[in-house]
């Protein structure tokens, strides 16, 4: 167990290091002089020189990278070009709101996808099964931004049940979270169905039924647990993926999260913010994947 933990953690650390290099290099690969871009179109040569010195752009890349990592570890991610405020102060509350959105979408996808998958497996070939397959196919084919616009039109604009845009309350969270959760609902339902169908054919399930156990007990206590192992890992992976996809739900519903802020920063060429936002989401994604590996090992100790 400890060797597994150590190897996976070391791998995650290497990937994190790689992520930091990609993010660091990205700004250095901008066509032209990064100092000019940072200083803005109307900056005087003196200001450009000042920016170059301030960001250490006149030093070798290795030194620049070491400084970048040292500062990032100390929580210093630079200042926003647009506002002049420390990037960490700017992104921290937005990051928290994106995590809340992704967590809510994950919760919705589990609450809907799990029973849907179980029903589809138990009533195999029935209308629930066929409907869940159709829903799953539609779910994996419907981009988040299309689902979001559709939900906004029907539930907010036409029916007026929920707010059209904004943030700050639970009611504001519902639509972005549902639109973000549609794909994982489809993925989870399909996975649970496939897992359950495989387990329900096992000998030990037949034994449990032969013992006279009620079907619900056979299903919940004996069949569901092994079927949930791959599902648990998919849920965790989906959480990481949703941190990225949240950018679309945030754009449609004006949810004040990190994704929306990132797009604004890209349009304004606010590179310190872009770097920090990508680093924050990427690091969370890597840590979520590490958690998946550990969870998988904990749920199924045969994994090596």
């Amino acid at each position: 167990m400890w060797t597994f933990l150590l190897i996976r953690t070391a791998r995650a650390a290497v990937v994190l290091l790689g992520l930091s290099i990609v993010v660091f290099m990205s700004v250095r690969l901008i066509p032209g002089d990064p100092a000019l871009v940072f200083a803005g179109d109307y900056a005087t040569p003196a200001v450009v020189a000042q920016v170059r010195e301030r960001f250490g752009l006149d030093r070798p890349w290795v030194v620049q990278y070491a400084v970048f990592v040292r500062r990032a570890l100390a929580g210093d991610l630079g200042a926003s070009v647009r506002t002049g405020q420390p990037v960490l102060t700017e992104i921290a509350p937005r990051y928290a709101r994106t995590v809340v959105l992704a967590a809510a979408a994950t919760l919705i996808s589990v609450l809907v996808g799990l029973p849907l998958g179980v029903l589809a497996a138990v009533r195999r070939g029935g209308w629930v099964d066929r409907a869940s397959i159709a829903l799953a196919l539609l779910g994996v084919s419907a981009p988040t931004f299309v689902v979001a616009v559709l939900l906004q039109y029907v539930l907010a604009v036409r029916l007026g049940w929920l707010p059209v845009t904004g943030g700050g309350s639970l009611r504001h969270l519902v639509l972005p979270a549902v639109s973000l959760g549609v794909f994982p609902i489809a993925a989870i339902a399909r996975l649970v169905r496939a897992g359950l169908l495989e387990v329900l054919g096992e000998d030990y399930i037949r034994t449990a039924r032969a013992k006279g156990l009620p079907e619900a007990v056979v299903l919940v206590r004996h069949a569901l647990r092994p079927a949930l192992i791959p599902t648990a890992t998919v849920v965790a992976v989906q959480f990481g993926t949703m941190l990225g996809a949240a950018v679309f739900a945030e754009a449609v519903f004006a949810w004040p999260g990190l994704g929306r802020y990132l797009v604004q920063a890209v349009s304004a060429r606010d590179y310190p913010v872009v770097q920090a936002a990508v680093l924050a989401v990427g690091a969370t994604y890597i840590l979520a994947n590490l958690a998946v590996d550990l969870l998988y090992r904990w749920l199924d100790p045969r994994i090596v």
Partner: protein
Amino acid sequence: MKRCSDRLRRPGLWSTLVRDCSGLVGLLLFAAIVAVAVIGPWTVRSDPLRVNLERAFAPPGTSGLFGADHLGRDLTARLIWGARTSLLSGAGALAIGLAAGVPIGLVAGYRRGAVDEVVMGLLEVLMAFPGILLAILAVAVLGAGRTTVVVAVGLVSVPLVARVVRGTTLALREAEYVLAARALGVGERRILWRHILPGCLSPLIVLSVLRLATTIVTVSGLGFLGLGGDPAVPEWGAMLSEGLAYLRRAPHLALLPGAAILLTVLSVNLFGDALNDALNPRLRSRTGGPPW
């Protein structure tokens, strides 16, 4: 899967494909969308860029088949030209992913050792964060624009393509016919292109079809976020985003491009799944990427 017709039960890939009803529907639908993208622009008379404020917000049926947008531009023409932009951008991104990913995967899988470790390590880093984020980062570096978006989305596909090709190459490099070619003194490049690459084609074709759905969605998504370059150029993602502002007054401005994206992705996924079932019957998993 339901059978479309028992009469079509013949051996072979094509018959397997057409027997799968959903696959056939997907193929026909996608062929129709491609036909619209290729032939459509020659058949519509109105200019998709021509502004006519007198026709602004014309509902469907009153001014052309689908009406006009907030600037009075013909929505039918814009949707048809948008099909060309979106499909070409998605296909272009896929082509970049294949052009870079196939050689990388071939060399990494064939050489193994340090080359494999370094290349796959780098690709693992690229795959370690959400694809859409990587695409946004690439657009941030290269600057917003249609070409940039295609390159950015193509770059996101490289690690996936390389990983699939590497996996097949690892298995094929030990195959007897490859060992025989090596023993006969055939050069590495020739072995890779003439003997190993054809063996990679089956998984590569399936990956390409399913990946096309993802590249079309990602390209449209970046257009939706306003990172796709010139907003006047008809593109489904940008059109959806423009229509969002008028959802109450003219919902068709957003719903029609949304439906076009959904139908395209659905058709590609249906066809890709059927192709996967036909080419890799042991791997009946539906592998479309996350549809942001």
